[in-house]
């Protein structure tokens, strides 16, 4: 077994403190009875109680969750197809452009993606609202799904697929019986990432939304851009708790099933 050197231990500890301290501070302040950041008024859950009566906020949260469900599902479907196209279809015509369109959105500044999609929606004269944001989020998230699923498709043993086909399975049946079960953890990880990306997005949604489709990030942004608000501390703490529980549950699940989740996440980010 390797020994962890003091330098490495310090680097790890400092890194983790840096990553988690701000989140811890936010959660602690959400229980501050005082309205002012500078004054500690004792522990209280009054800001959480205030949220229950904020109908607009709850409305936005429901819109955001619906949006995330729709766009995560659509982008997982499209992203998985794109990953299959890139790994199983050899050198089809226009492959370079296709690969370019997969990788470019991963790093494209969101203001540009948002602006360009809005101009498209205006050009074809559709009413902006829930569905235009859903299309925008699907487009952005599918590329992340592709990268995750692709890394899994590249990793696994192709001879399994070949064996199935040699034994007379059709390509479709081979996919359903052999390939799909093997890439399922990556597909699940992709879906979760797409869900989180949609729930998180402010910029693209701001450009592509319309009346009646104010997402939670847009609502939070309009509340906090002029300063800290204790109610928002409470909303953010709830979101952190939900995401934290979901991700920890999912990574435990992935660990028990195949350990692919963490690897897929790591691969997703090159």
């Amino acid at each position, binding site marked *: 077994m390797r020994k962890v050197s003091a330098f490495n231990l310090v680097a790890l500890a400092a890194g983790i403190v840096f990553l988690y301290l701000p989140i811890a501070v936010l959660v602690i302040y959400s229980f501050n009875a005082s309205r002012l950041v500078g004054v500690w008024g004792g522990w209280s859950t009054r800001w959480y109680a205030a949220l229950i009566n904020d109908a607009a906020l709850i409305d936005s949260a429901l819109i955001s969750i619906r949006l995330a469900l729709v766009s995560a599902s659509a982008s997982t479907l499209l992203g998985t197809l794109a990953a299959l196209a890139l790994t199983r279809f050899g050198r089809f015509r226009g492959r370079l452009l296709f690969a370019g369109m997969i990788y470019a959105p991963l790093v494209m500044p969101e203001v540009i993606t948002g602006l360009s999609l809005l101009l*498209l929606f205006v050009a074809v004269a559709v009413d902006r609202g829930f569905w235009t944001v859903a299309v925008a989020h699907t487009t952005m998230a599918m590329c992340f799904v592709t990268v995750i699923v692709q890394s899994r498709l590249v990793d696994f043993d192709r001879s399994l697929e070949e064996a199935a086909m040699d034994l007379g399975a059709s390509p479709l049946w081979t996919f359903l019986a052999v390939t799909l079960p093997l890439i399922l953890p990556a597909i699940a990880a992709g879906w979760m990432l797409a869900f989180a990306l949609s729930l998180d997005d402010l910029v693209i949604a701001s450009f592509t939304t319309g009346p009646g489709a104010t997402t939670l990030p847009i609502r939070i942004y309009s509340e906090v851009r002029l300063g800290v608000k204790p109610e928002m501390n409470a909303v953010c703490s709830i979101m952190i708790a939900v*995401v934290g529980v979901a991700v920890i549950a999912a990574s435990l699940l992935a660990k028990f099933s195949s350990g692919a989740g963490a690897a897929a996440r790591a691969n997703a980010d090159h």
Partner: protein
Amino acid sequence: MKRQRGESFWGMLVVRIPYAWLLAFFLIPFLIVLKMSLSQTAIAQPPYTPVLDLAAGWHGIAAFFSALSFDNYVLLGSDPLYLLSYLKSVEIAAFSTLILLLIGYPIAYAIARTPRRWHAVLVVLTVLPFWTSLLIRIYAWMNILERDGPLNKVLVALGLVSKPPAWLATDTATYIGIIYSYLPFMVLPLYAILEKMDETLLEAAADLGCRRWRAFWRVTFPLSASGVLAGALLCFIPIVGEFVIPDLLGGSQSPMIGQTIWTEFFGNKDWPAASAVAVVLVCVLVTPILFYQHQAMRMARRD
């Protein structure tokens, strides 16, 4: 077998569906931005001219093209505000990428050097904050950086400052926010490459009398170059166009380019100018983006 699958019409749908989607919602919107940048703003619905009128036949198309102009680009060149905004964005992105590398490398290195059974947990710990909303994480920093917030309380209590400084609405706050938000993007590619590294190479270097620090620079660092490059590009490119972080933490006197696009669009309602700023931004980023794509495709093949 590959060919057999590729030939069937239904099989090719696997390629065609995502391809068509990306053409319609990534490439074509881009061309529309390009067209918009050559248009003029107007008080109308939609708020720009010319609008392509296909009903008018060739005449309409000719009128459309003759009405396009480079005025917006002339404006970008003549108003120093835009140039300063671009320069500032590139400067902030370059410095924060450098700082991210200096902070991220030791963390990635440390994860890769711990016993293997720790790896999964440490990677999840690094990535976990990234799963919560960027907006929330930046908002957390707004709390911390308030004038009478926790950071200044600690600094004053330690006697490091006599008068609590203003952190919010400064470039320092923007840097803190960017480094905090992008750290996982730097650590993960570095970890992925460092983790695969063959440690016997370092042992060989040590056997040949190479000191540890020297061995790091002569062996480890060069071998991790592709991870460094991937991490740097993954951070640099989106940071240049970052909006949320400078908007909530930074000052408003010298905006980054993402803020400029946002203001042109939402504040001034000048869609053509916003498009022109966006087109120039893409031109600035096209080299690093192509470089990144090349790198990403190479890594995907090698895996």
